[in-house]
C-alpha cells in the first residue's frame, strides 16, 4: 500500500463501475447455479433417505465430511479431476450445499404431523398427490430455512474460487485488492458480498412467505 493511500477511493469506484458490475454478475450466477443444482440433488437424496431409512446415516456422514474440508483445499483437490474450470468451482460449491439442504429437507418432511397426512389420505389423496399438495407445502418453511443458510454460505464461498481463476467479487477482494495493496477494491468486494448475502436471504424469506401465506399468523 502506498503511503497516503486512502481506504476508499470513490473515483476508482466510479471509473470501474462496469468491472464491479461484471464481477457481481458472475458472483450471482455462480451462487444461483450452485444452489439450484445443490437443491435438485439434495431433494433426490432426501427422498432416498426417507424411502430407504438406512441410507440417511451414510448420506449425512459423507456430506458432513465434505463440509469440514476447507474450500480452498476442496477446489484444489478437484483440479486433477475437472481441471481449472468453472465446473470445478460449481462442483465444489454444490457439494457444500448438500449437508444443510438434505438435512433440512428430511427434517422438514419428517416434521409433517401424522394427523395431517392421515387427513389428506382420508380426503382421497393418493401418495403422490398427497406429497405435492399437502406434505411439501407444510414442510416448506423448514426447507426454505435450509435454502437460506445454503445461499448465504455459498455467497461467501464463491469469493474463494478466485484462487482457481474464477471468483466473482473474490477477484476484487484478492486479486485487485489484497495482492496489490489496494484497500478500495477489497472493501467494495467485501461490502457487496455482505449486501448480496443479506438481499438473497431477504428474497428467500419473502418467497417463503408467498409460498406459505397461512404461516404468516405464526410470525415466522
Amino acid at each position, binding site marked *: 500500500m502506498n503511503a497516503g493511500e486512502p481506504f476508499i477511493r470513490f473515483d476508482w469506484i466510479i471509473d470501474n463501475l462496469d468491472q464491479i458490475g461484471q464481477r457481481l454478475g458472475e458472483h450471482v450466477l455462480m451462487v444461483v447455479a450452485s444452489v439450484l443444482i445443490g437443491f435438485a440433488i439434495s431433494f433426490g437424496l432426501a427422498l432416498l433417505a426417507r424411502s430407504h431409512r438406512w441410507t440417511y446415516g451414510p448420506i449425512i456422514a459423507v456430506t458432513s465430511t465434505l463440509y469440514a474440508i476447507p474450500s480452498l483445499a476442496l477446489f484444489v483437490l478437484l*483440479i486433477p479431476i475437472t481441471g481449472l474450470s468453472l465446473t470445478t468451482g460449481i462442483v465444489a460449491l454444490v457439494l457444500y450445499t448438500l449437508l444443510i439442504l438434505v438435512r433440512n429437507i428430511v427434517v422438514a418432511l419428517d416434521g409433517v404431523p401424522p394427523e395431517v397426512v392421515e387427513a389428506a389420505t382420508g380426503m382421497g389423496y393418493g401418495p403422490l398427490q398427497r406429497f405435492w399438495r399437502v406434505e411439501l407445502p407444510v414442510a416448506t418453511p423448514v426447507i426454505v430455512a435450509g435454502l437460506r443458510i445454503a445461499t448465504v454460505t455459498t455467497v461467501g464461498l464463491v469469493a474463494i474460487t478466485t484462487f482457481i481463476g474464477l471468483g466473482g467479487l473474490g477477484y476484487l477482494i484478492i486479486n485487485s485488492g489484497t495482492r496489490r495493496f489496494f484497500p478500495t477494491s*477489497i472493501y467494495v468486494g467485501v461490502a457487496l*458480498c455482505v449486501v448480496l448475502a443479506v438481499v438473497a436471504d431477504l428474497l428467500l424469506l419473502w418467497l417463503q412467505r408467498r409460498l406459505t401465506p397461512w404461516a404468516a399468523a405464526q410470525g415466522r
Partner: protein
Amino acid sequence: MELFGQGIAWLADPANWTDPRNGIFLRLWEHVSLSAAALAAAIAIGLPIGLWIGHTGRGATAVIAIANIGRAVPSIGWLGIVFPLTLVALGRGGLGFVPSVIALTALGIPPIVTNAYAGMREVDADLVEAGRGMGMRELDVVRQVEIPVALPVILAGIRVSAVQIVATATLAAIVGGGTLGDFIIQGIFVRALDRVVGAAILVAILAILTELAFSLLERRAISPGIRRGGQTAPIEPGGVALPRVAG
C-alpha cells in the same frame, strides 16, 4: 488423477518436511499456533458476551443482529477488512500473524456468541427458579445450573468456530501469515501443483481432525443425565450451531 500421486509423493519426501524456511513442519506449526491463538481469543471475547446476554436477556437482539451480519461476511473478507488497517497502524508489523489472528478471531466470535446465547435461553426456566429457590446466588445459578445444561450447545458453537478458524487459517497466507495455505497459494502462482495438492490433503485432514476432536470433547463433556436421543433439529437461519465452511 496422477496429480494425487504427485501430491502424496511430495508429502512422502522428508526433505519437504524439515526445510527450516519453508518446510511442512514450520507451516504446520504456523497453522496450528495461529488457529489456537485465534480460537482462544474468540472464546475469551465471545463466551462471556453470549453467556451474559443469555442469562440476562439484555441487549440480545442487538448482539445477535451484529453476529448474524458477521456471519454474512465471507471468510476471506475478514482478512481483507483487517489487513489494510493493521498495515496503516503498524507498518511492516501489520503483515503476517497480527492481521491473521485478528481476522480469524473476528470470524470465530459469532458462532460462539449465538450458541452460548441460544444454549442459555433454552434452559428450562423452572430449573433456574428451583436453583434460586434453593438459595443459590445468581452466579451459582449460572455456574451450576445454566452452564451445565447449556453445555452441549455452547460446545457446539466452539466446535463450529474452531473448524472455521482452522479452515480459514489457510487463507492467511495471502497476507504473509504462512500456514499450510502458503504451499497452496504460492504453488498455484508458480504452477507447482504437487505442493498444492499435497498441502490441500494436509489441510483437509487437519480440518476433519479438528471437527472430530471437538465432537469427542462435546460428547465427553455432556452430563449423562441430559444426553439427548438422536433427535435432529432443523438448522435455522440465525439459530444454533450453524456450521459454515470457510477458507
